[in-house]
């Protein structure tokens, strides 16, 4: 192995005898018989029938949203909490209810723990659910999480009986803090909300997966189906997709693509990918070759 990479690549594996090209990018996994490939996603003791969670924002019409929700196969979808608009006739909660999709209220737009806590409490009152996708952002240009406010809000909401699913940075230490605060899952971003930049730091996502004792949901940044597939291959338990579907040219078709990508990525993760190799390795035997 070492001989194979002698020369100019010899020193590229910093701090290790094996160059990075030869290392498997996914962490070593041990077989867990309690988690077969077709195992259900379970959050806070509740089975969620799909590993694709949908965001409902950004769609151009209620009909398109309905089609995308149905074709995605999702069982859990986020909604925002906003002032009532007396001119709006359709009810998002009724739509989700009619499709048997669980409502996951979010605290989108909140900049402080106190704003997020009030929003979560309003959501609990309005939708009769203890579940909340906790978002506390630091600025409106990047929409990146403010971890200090986020952890503070998570602690208070957990104490108040909420099932807290925090949207967080792709930082393993932040994710650990949130899990220690009692969150029912952690939802690290792949890249900024709505950016479609995919997973900018797959290694951090793999580290979060490796250490997490709660489900890991890749949230934010998914641009297309391959991003969702990679998230699952990295070992995430689920993926949350909003803009990549709702703002796609054909949302319904993208919803199907995301559904299939999540399933494919999950299966590939469970199957166990081959180790990356620096050079080729023949799959046909050399024995028995015709001699000329």
């Amino acid at each position, binding site marked *: 192995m070492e001989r194979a990479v002698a020369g100019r690549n010899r020193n590229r594996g910093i701090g290790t005898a094996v160059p990075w090209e030869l290392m498997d990018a996914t962490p070593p996994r041990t077989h867990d018989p309690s988690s077969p490939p077709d195992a259900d996603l379970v959050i806070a003791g509740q089975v969620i029938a799909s590993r694709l969670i949908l*965001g*409902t*924002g*950004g*769609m151009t019409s209620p009909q398109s*949203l309905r089609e995308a929700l149905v074709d995605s196969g999702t069982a859990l979808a*986020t*909604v*925002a*909490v*906003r*002032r*009532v*608009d*007396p001119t709006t*006739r359709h*009810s*998002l*909660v*009724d739509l989700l209810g009619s499709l048997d999709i669980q*409502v996951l*209220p*979010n605290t*989108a737009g909140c900049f402080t723990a106190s704003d997020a806590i*009030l929003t979560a*409490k*309003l*959501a*609990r*009152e*309005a*939708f009769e659910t203890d579940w909340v*996708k906790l*978002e506390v952002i630091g600025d409106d240009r990047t929409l990146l999480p403010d971890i200090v406010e986020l952890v503070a809000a998570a602690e208070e909401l957990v104490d108040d009986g909420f099932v807290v699913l925090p949207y967080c940075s792709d930082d393993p230490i932040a994710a650990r803090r949130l899990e220690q605060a009692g969150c029912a899952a952690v939802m690290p971003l792949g890249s900024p*909300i709505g950016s479609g930049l995919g997973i900018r730091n797959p290694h951090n996502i793999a580290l979060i997966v490796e250490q997490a004792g709660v489900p890991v949901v890749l949230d934010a940044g998914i641009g297309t189906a391959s991003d969702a597939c990679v998230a699952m291959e990295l070992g995430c338990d689920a993926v949350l997709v*909003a803009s990549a579907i709702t703002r796609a040219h054909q949302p319904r078709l993208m919803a199907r693509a995301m559904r299939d990508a999540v399933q494919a990525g999950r299966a590939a993760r469970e199957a166990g990918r081959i180790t990356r190799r620096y050079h080729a390795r023949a799959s046909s035997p050399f024995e028995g070759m015709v001699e000329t």
Partner: protein
Amino acid sequence: MTVVLVNGAPWDGPPGTTVAALVAQWCESPRGIAVARNGDVVPKSTWEATQITSGDQIEIVTAAAGG
């Protein structure tokens, strides 16, 4: 008259108006609705008994498409 802010806009009504009566004016149905009064959630079970008073800031919220 009782003058309050509802979702940021001035609103006036008869003295003794309850949260339940206010919600009925603003929404077709109380389903999927929550109310905050001066920054605190008003539980649905207390809407009938809670009278708004002048100067209150009322927020009436529901689900909107999002994230």
